[in-house]
């Protein structure tokens, strides 16, 4: 799977007429490819994706199941490496970052909400939410606790801090996962179907939370969703089909 950058002469840029002058790219994907190789088949999850996320943007991604949304998000979140192409974070190619720097970026810059929560079952809700702060130098135990409580309060779970993930419903777990991403106060939140398991009222609340975060704190948000109405409320909607951006 060779990837020839020079071939991409014209790059169809974002749909919304973003004010080019103030646009400051935080994440840039160039010709990103992701191929999953198994013994029998080769799955092309991402096929030459070019995408720029600007600072302060709220972008939603939609597309049918299996079209590569989660794959795209994990590559943006520096959790996985693309098979080809270049990701730039703050204008610097990711390959140029050391392992230690990448860990620091994941920890401080990015908040990730996993599609299937990924909570640590052996830790209480509070300890789970504290996790990103645990790996952040200079944050003391008391501060960690306070921030975790505040984040849990925002998702309406302040009464469940001592519970363990196995004692929570799917929607509650999803909210813990969101609180965990919030607790670190990252510049960028990458959320994979954050309201997928919530009822419409709770989903609406979370959506409000994200919108507020975006408006008031200027947090850059990329959200994968299946909800057309939610998607319309964001600044930019990207549609995916079969590993490629279609609009």
């Amino acid at each position, binding site marked *: 799977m060779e990837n020839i950058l020079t071939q991409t002469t014209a790059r169809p840029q974002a749909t919304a007429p973003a004010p080019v002058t103030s646009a400051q790219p935080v994440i840039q994907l160039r010709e990103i490819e992701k191929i999953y190789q198994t013994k029998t088949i080769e799955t092309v999850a991402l096929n030459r994706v070019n995408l720029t996320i600007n600072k302060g943007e709220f972008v939603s991604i939609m597309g049918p199941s299996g079209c590569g949304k*989660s794959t795209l998000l*994990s590559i943006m*979140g*520096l*959790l*996985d*490496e693309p098979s080809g192409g270049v990701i730039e974070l703050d204008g610097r190619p990711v390959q140029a970052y050391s*392992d*230690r720097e990448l*860990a*620091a*970026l*994941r*920890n*401080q810059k990015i908040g*990730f909400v*996993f599609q*299937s929560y*990924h909570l*640590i079952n*052996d*830790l*209480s809700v509070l*300890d789970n939410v*504290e*996790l*990103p702060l*645990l*790996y*952040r130098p200079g944050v003391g*135990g008391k501060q960690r606790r306070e921030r975790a409580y505040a984040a849990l309060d925002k998702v309406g779970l302040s009464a469940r801090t001592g519970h*363990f993930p196995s004692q929570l419903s799917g929607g509650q777990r999803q909210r813990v996962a969101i609180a*965990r991403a919030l607790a670190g106060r990252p510049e960028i939140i990458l959320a994979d179907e954050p309201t997928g398991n919530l009822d419409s009222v709770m989903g609406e609340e979370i959506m409000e939370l994200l919108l507020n975060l975006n408006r008031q704190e200027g947090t850059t948000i990329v959200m994968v969703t299946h909800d057309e109405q939610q998607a319309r409320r964001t600044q930019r909607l990207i549609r995916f089909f079969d590993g490629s951006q279609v609009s």
Partner: protein
Amino acid sequence: MLRHLLTLIWNRKRANFLLLTEIFFAFIVLFVIGSLLIYNQVNYRLPRGFEYENSWEMTLNPAGQAREQQHTALLQVVQRLRTLPGVVDVARHSSNTPFSFSNMNTIFPHNGKDTPLTEIYEVDDHAANVLGLQLVEGRWFDRRDDAVGSAKPVVVTKDFRDAVFPGGKAVGELMVRDKDKLRIIGVTTTYRPANDYADGSPGMFMRTTDLDSVNYGLPVLLVRVQPGSDATLQERVSREIATITGGWKTDIQPLPEKRIRKLKTVLVPVIGLSLVGLFLILNVALGLFGVLWVNISQRRAEIGLRRAMGATGSAISWQFLTEMLLLTTLGVVLGGLVAVQFPLLGVLGVPSVTYLLGMGAAAVLIYLITALCAFQPSRQAAGIHPAVALREE
């Protein structure tokens, strides 16, 4: 971070129980073997308290001769051998000679308290010279003791004195054993005739004179010879004895040979136990390694997630190492609570220092083993990619 790990260990208590038990038992086993080895080693370095290099143990066999004749013959043998060229000195000794398998011991009350188990050596005036005994107090038996007094003269070892008369002198002290009154006239240095690894256990020398015939068993003599004496002297001595007594058989065993033979019987169980211990430790190490390995493969998702949350690879391996060391500490503390009962209760009369050293050695070894066992799995854990968090559940 430490609190986080303690919370994690506590929350995973069921999974950690197996590991903890394993560490606990490993500690106990190491403690017992360690204490034993240290105890032996400490004893080995103690002075022996006598010389054996140029001495023989000689057992005489009167082969059916009448008792009265036996005694005069024995006295004649002793007289003759003392004048024989090549022989330095000869002493009568009860059957519990150095490096022998024979014991003769007793416990008797003194000042309302029982003495420790004390080995009784029945010897004549020449024994101190033959064995090269050193006195730290008083004197050895001599003609002065022939004067019939109300008390029998005895010489005790330093370890007897320290146990029965702690911190004080013993010469001049009177004791009563059975119906006999005993007067201490001298104190020897620590005396360890049993084997190289024996402790300085209490002993008491009682005087045998020419008036005393052999009470039971065969007559035993200790013979000190000139350095460099060989089998020719042994033959000569045997012949001489046969001539004097009219046919007594003589069994000569040089003490250096006896020492080696005794050493083997003492070392075999120690080596055996050490091998069993080593095997156990190997088992425990493999067990720990296995448990850790499984542990880490079961926790791949957690590790991936921690990486995704911004933990570096080295933070992950430190986490696992620290978790292991915390668990080890817990196991060692629990094991230590059991082990500390040994010195507290004074088990087997081994000095407390030995047990404490044993505990220390066991703890150091356990930490070493767990650190070694945890090292590879932790490195493995550090290599887990954050993308793993996406896939495993």
